[in-house]
């Protein structure tokens, strides 16, 4: 915040300074332009005043010499003409190139020479003359006032000054002086060049100012965006924890849902297994009951036989009850960790599922090379093993494999379940632990392996992996040793 205010302060100081500089530069330029224009005007004016004085003197001289009778006197006296022309020649310099006196020919727009101050190519007395800018010349006759004008057709090099000679309140002739504007033009040229340089400098200054303005604007925008992004990040950080909590809660809900689905699936399997386990004792109870009935009808049921048959029925019902208890214990989640070896785990699992598998002509072999005692959630671990065995059974049954086998090995802390079902295709082997992923064509929920991995890795702190060997799939459980 401190940096921001410092930046703003320096930023505005810079701008104010720059604007003052620009305004100052413009003021200097304006002053220079006005001064330069004044110098030009004054120079021209001083030239005009000087020329005007010369012309006035010439006019006064002519009036004096001709005794206010210009035309008559000059016509009569060639000597006077020559004398006046010599006087005109005296004023002629490089700067005042032509000095001559002309008179308008009545009823025409032409003039005629009366006096000529030129040394060479002197005009003759009364020689006809067609001036340029005729209206200016005629204007002098009309207004009786002197005037001057530039010759635009020869690059403004010359200026003509016209002074009327007034006698008896009438313009009787015009003194024309053509003088060079070379020095004036030189000064004008130099001032113009200086003015152009100042203009270029001003343009450059203005360009730099605009450039700086644009860059500053871009920078300001960038800073604004950065601040906006920083605010967004800050806001995001504050809401991130909430989002994480929300997502975790969603995940928990999802896991809970999956667990419920998994339990329902397991329940279905359990019912199937109970039904299978109960089939034989129920048949036996039924057969015993039929025997009792038949012996009673044939009147050969004695007390001894009845007691024996009743005991058999009782024994069978006890077996049914025990089966129920076994299954209930098996699927009941354990709240506390217990000690178990792979041998015990395998024995209790095969008690439940072994007969069912063997009835399907699948050979189960075990190879126990481990006496490691694990401190873990026993029932969950049994469920995982049961799930792996049942998966192998389903594959072998589905593919109708001859000489089907399931081999379970326990080596140190590893428990390996392998079968000869042909294995899992390599393109899907990475996905078999994903939820709702199943290769079974019938009754596959896609939750068994996902739940197994979750139990082993999240609850039991072990690992569950799968590979293929020459015969089929190989699932490996690795548990941490206590």
């Amino acid at each position, binding site marked *: 915040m401190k940096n921001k205010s410092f930046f703003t302060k320096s930023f505005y100081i810079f701008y104010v300074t720059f604007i003052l500089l620009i305004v100052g530069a413009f003021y200097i330029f304006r002053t220079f332009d006005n001064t330069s224009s004044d110098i030009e005007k004054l120079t021209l004016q001083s030239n005009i005043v000087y020329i005007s004085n010369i012309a006035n003197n010439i006019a006064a001289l002519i009036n004096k010499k001709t005794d206010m009778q210009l035309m008559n006197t000059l016509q009569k006296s060639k000597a006077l003409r020559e004398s006046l022309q010599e006087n005109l020649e005296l004023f002629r310099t490089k700067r005042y*190139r*032509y000095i*001559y006196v002309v008179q308008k020919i009545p009823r*025409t727009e032409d003039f005629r020479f009366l006096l000529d101050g*030129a040394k060479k190519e002197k*005009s*003759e007395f009364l*020689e*006809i*003359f*067609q*001036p*340029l800018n005729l209206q200016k010349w005629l204007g002098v006759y009309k207004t009786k006032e002197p005037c001057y004008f530039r*010759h635009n057709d*020869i*690059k403004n*090099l*010359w200026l003509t000054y016209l002074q009327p000679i007034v006698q008896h309140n009438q313009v009787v002739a015009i003194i*024309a002086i*053509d003088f060079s504007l*070379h020095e004036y033009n*030189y000064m004008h040229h130099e001032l113009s060049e200086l003015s152009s340089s100042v203009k270029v400098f001003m343009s450059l200054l203005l360009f730099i100012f605009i450039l700086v303005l644009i860059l500053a604007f871009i920078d300001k925008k960038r800073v604004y965006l950065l601040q906006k992004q920083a605010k967004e990040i800050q806001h995001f950080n504050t809401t991130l924890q909430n989002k994480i909590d929300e997502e975790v809660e969603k995940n928990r809900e999802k896991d809970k849902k999956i667990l419920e689905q998994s339990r329902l699936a397991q329940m279905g399997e359990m019912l199937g297994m109970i039904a299978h386990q109960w089939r034989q004792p129920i048949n036996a109870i039924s057969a015993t009951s039929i025997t009792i009935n038949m012996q009673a009808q044939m009147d050969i049921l004695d007390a001894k036989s009845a007691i024996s048959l009743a005991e058999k029925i009782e024994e069978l019902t006890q077996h049914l009850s025990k089966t129920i208890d076994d299954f209930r214990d098996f699927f009941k989640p354990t709240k506390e960790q217990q000690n178990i070896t792979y041998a015990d785990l395998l024995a209790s699992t095969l008690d439940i599922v072994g007969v069912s598998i063997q009835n399907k002509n699948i050979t189960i072999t075990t190879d126990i090379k481990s006496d490691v005692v694990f401190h873990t959630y026993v029932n969950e671990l049994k469920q995982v093993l049961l799930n792996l065995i049942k998966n192998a059974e389903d594959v072998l049954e589905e593919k109708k494999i001859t000489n089907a086998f399931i081999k379970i090995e326990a080596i140190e802390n590893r428990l390996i379940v392998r079968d000869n079902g042909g294995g899992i295709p390599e393109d899907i082997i990475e996905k078999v632990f994903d939820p709702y992923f199943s290769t079974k064509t019938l009754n596959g929920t896609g939750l068994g392996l996902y739940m197994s991995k979750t139990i082993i890795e999240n609850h039991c702190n072990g690992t569950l992996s799968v590979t293929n060997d020459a015969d089929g799939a190989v699932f490996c459980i690795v548990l941490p040793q206590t």
Partner: protein
Amino acid sequence: MKLLFVLLIFFISVHADVYTQKLYETILGSIFKERPIPIFVSGEAKATLEKSTLFYIVKNCQESSVAVVGDDFTPKQECKNIPIFATTHRSYMRIEDAFGAFYWRKGRPQIYFRKRGLKMFHLNLPLDLQRFIDEK
């Protein structure tokens, strides 16, 4: 700076020469319809006119359509039937049969035509040149 001024004067003098040539072309080109116009030239105008493609300079006055003459020209018998155009005020005044003149005076072009000369040689002036006719 002096050099610049000299160069400027040179430029203007060259430019003025071209300007003079253009004026000759405009004046004589609008009066005489042949192309190129055979002209007899005497005096300083020769240098200017020989650069023009509109004119063809002939040595004898009789072969020309117009004689453009300066102060050095003396009217001859063989040129009597040729229209004469003066290039100085003096020659224009001296040769009374000259139908016109063009020369510079005080840096200004001077163009004049004589009614008598134009009539004598049946020459017609375009409208924009008629204002230069000397009524005398």
